């Protein structure tokens, strides 16, 4: 850390102002309390204060050198006592030498100068203590600021890392199975094969383009989800149906990107893949108090023995929501008999 008295303009001006006031105060004391004439009082006050002002800037280095991290408190205390005596001593010696030369004719003044030596020495020590205290406060304050800055940098780094870890990834089996469907359609229905190829490409492009840390409009997220469902629809034909019920005010609302997709995938995976009956996947959105509530709902076969590893997608969404909104309980899962429903609450900002 560089010396704030020389590198920071504001600090230097404050410092100089303080000395200017001391300079004025000392003139007052000399003239009105000690009955010294204005001219010698002015010279006296100027020499003492200007000199200490210069010496005082140097005290910074004794403070930097005696940081609490490197030395014990006792050692620092002793160092400062020695430094205080030396500083005050030099200050007095030089000042008195100069004043002796300049005001050699004024015997009354010189008498006062010698008589006040002890008091001036004690005053010099006091100033030293004040300056040291100020310097320590400055160092402490700077360290604190640095720490706060570093901490917030670290926090945002951690957040980014965590969000990256929760990144959505396209299920490779979905892609391979879709490609298999396309392969089959090229034989039986080339037009459909083309349609599916284009849908699969659009879906992949939309997921690849998205930045996980960004938000996008609900309507865009739903459109991407629909592409996905359309593709699954080609694979599974009549095995499921998608219904949406969106309030108008929802469509333009912003949500974290790729937060709906895993829910659609869950509905397909645990609903459609495992069930022999038709599955209805329902998406709805509306306002609820100060939240937008988005729900994805599907029926499932309650007799299907659940596989483990469920809920990783859900857990990821939960963690992402928590990181983004800094709030718990934004995801709510309801499981009833043969109905599975996930509610997402987006705080209205």
């Amino acid at each position, binding site marked *: 850390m560089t010396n704030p008295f020389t590198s920071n303009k504001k600090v230097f001006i404050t410092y100089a102002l303080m000395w200017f006031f001391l300079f004025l105060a000392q003139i007052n004391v000399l003239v009105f309390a000690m009955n010294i004439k204005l001219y010698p009082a002015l010279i006296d006050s100027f020499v003492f204060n200007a000199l200490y002002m210069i010496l005082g800037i140097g005290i910074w280095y004794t403070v930097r050198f005696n940081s609490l991290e490197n030395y014990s408190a006792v050692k620092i205390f002793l160092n400062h006592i020695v430094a205080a005596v030396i500083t005050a001593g030099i200050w007095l010696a030089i000042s008195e030498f100069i004043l002796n030369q300049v005001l050699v004719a004024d015997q009354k003044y010189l008498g006062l100068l010698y008589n006040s030596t002890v008091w001036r020495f004690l005053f010099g020590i006091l100033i030293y203590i004040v300056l040291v205290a100020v310097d320590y406060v400055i160092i402490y304050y700077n360290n604190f600021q640095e720490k706060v800055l570093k901490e917030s940098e670290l926090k945002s780094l951690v957040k980014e890392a965590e969000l990256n870890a929760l990144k959505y990834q396209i299920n490779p*089996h979905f892609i391979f199975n879709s490609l298999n469907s396309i392969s089959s359609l090229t034989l*039986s229905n080339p037009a459909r094969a083309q349609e599916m190829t284009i849908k699969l490409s659009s879906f992949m492009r939309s997921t690849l383009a998205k930045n996980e840390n960004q938000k996008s409009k609900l309507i865009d997220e739903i459109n991407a989800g629909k592409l996905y469902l359309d593709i699954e629809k080609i694979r599974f034909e009549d095995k499921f149906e998608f219904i949406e019920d969106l309030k108008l005010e929802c469509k333009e609302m912003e949500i974290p990107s790729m937060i709906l997709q895993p829910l659609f995938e869950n509905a397909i995976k645990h609903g459609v893949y495992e069930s022999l009956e038709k599955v209805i996947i329902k998406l709805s959105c509306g306002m609820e108090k100060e939240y937008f509530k988005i729900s994805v709902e599907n029926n499932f076969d309650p007799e299907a023995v659940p596989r483990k590893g469920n809920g990783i997608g859900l857990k990821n969404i939960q963690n992402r929501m928590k990181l983004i909104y800094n709030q718990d309980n934004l995801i709510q899962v309801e499981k009833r008999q043969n109905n599975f429903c996930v509610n997402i609450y987006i705080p209205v900002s």
Partner: protein
Amino acid sequence: MDKIRTIIIDDEQLARDIIKAYLKKLDKFELIGEATNGFDGIKLINDTKPNLVFLDIQMPKLTGFEMLELIEEPPVIIFTTAFDQYALKAFEVNATDYLLKPFAEERFLEAINKAEKILTSESEIKNKFKSLTKLAELKNEFLERVVYKSGQKINVIPVDDINYIEAQDDYTMLYTRKGNFLKQKTMKYFEENLDPNVFLRIHRSFIVSLTNIKQIELLEKESYQVILQDGKKLPVSKSGYQKVKELIK
């Protein structure tokens, strides 16, 4: 020579279609049925006794692997799947064949030729099947559910419902919350395929679910037994006791 009677079991219409389209061009093969899930698949195999089955792995009700466990005299199987983690293992153990979706017609014919060879040299079938079931056991993941047949009914039990397993000669008896049943699997199979953090081989003849242990009791010097939630007592071997102690710690 008779035609090779073939069935396709896959939950996706389009996946079945492409196999059908390829098969149609071959005179030697006759498609005699299709199924869209594990339950129907077993029934179809038992009813029609096919020579060759194209079998998907991920399906509703039962997976392809689970189906195989429940069929007494399985036909030659060609797996068709998008899951390459199983397929890679398949090549390690030299399985009949594994078709990774999507597959080319040439690759399909290759698989068909292998199957034909096996079917014409009768004795090899059983060996091939062995390697295939072994494959199912090679999966990295631990068992999640166990299937068994009682009469005509097929039951799927989540492993969480197993209380303990007892050795019965070459078979094992599973004591579950939904009753007891005999499984044609060895203790070693269960020891290797159940999550060792949950299931513990406490004795040569017993594997116990940790959640089902109520307490461990000193019987006599250096001899212990566990008491289960329902009060039943099972012996614990010396090495079994070490394992329990470590896990419960």
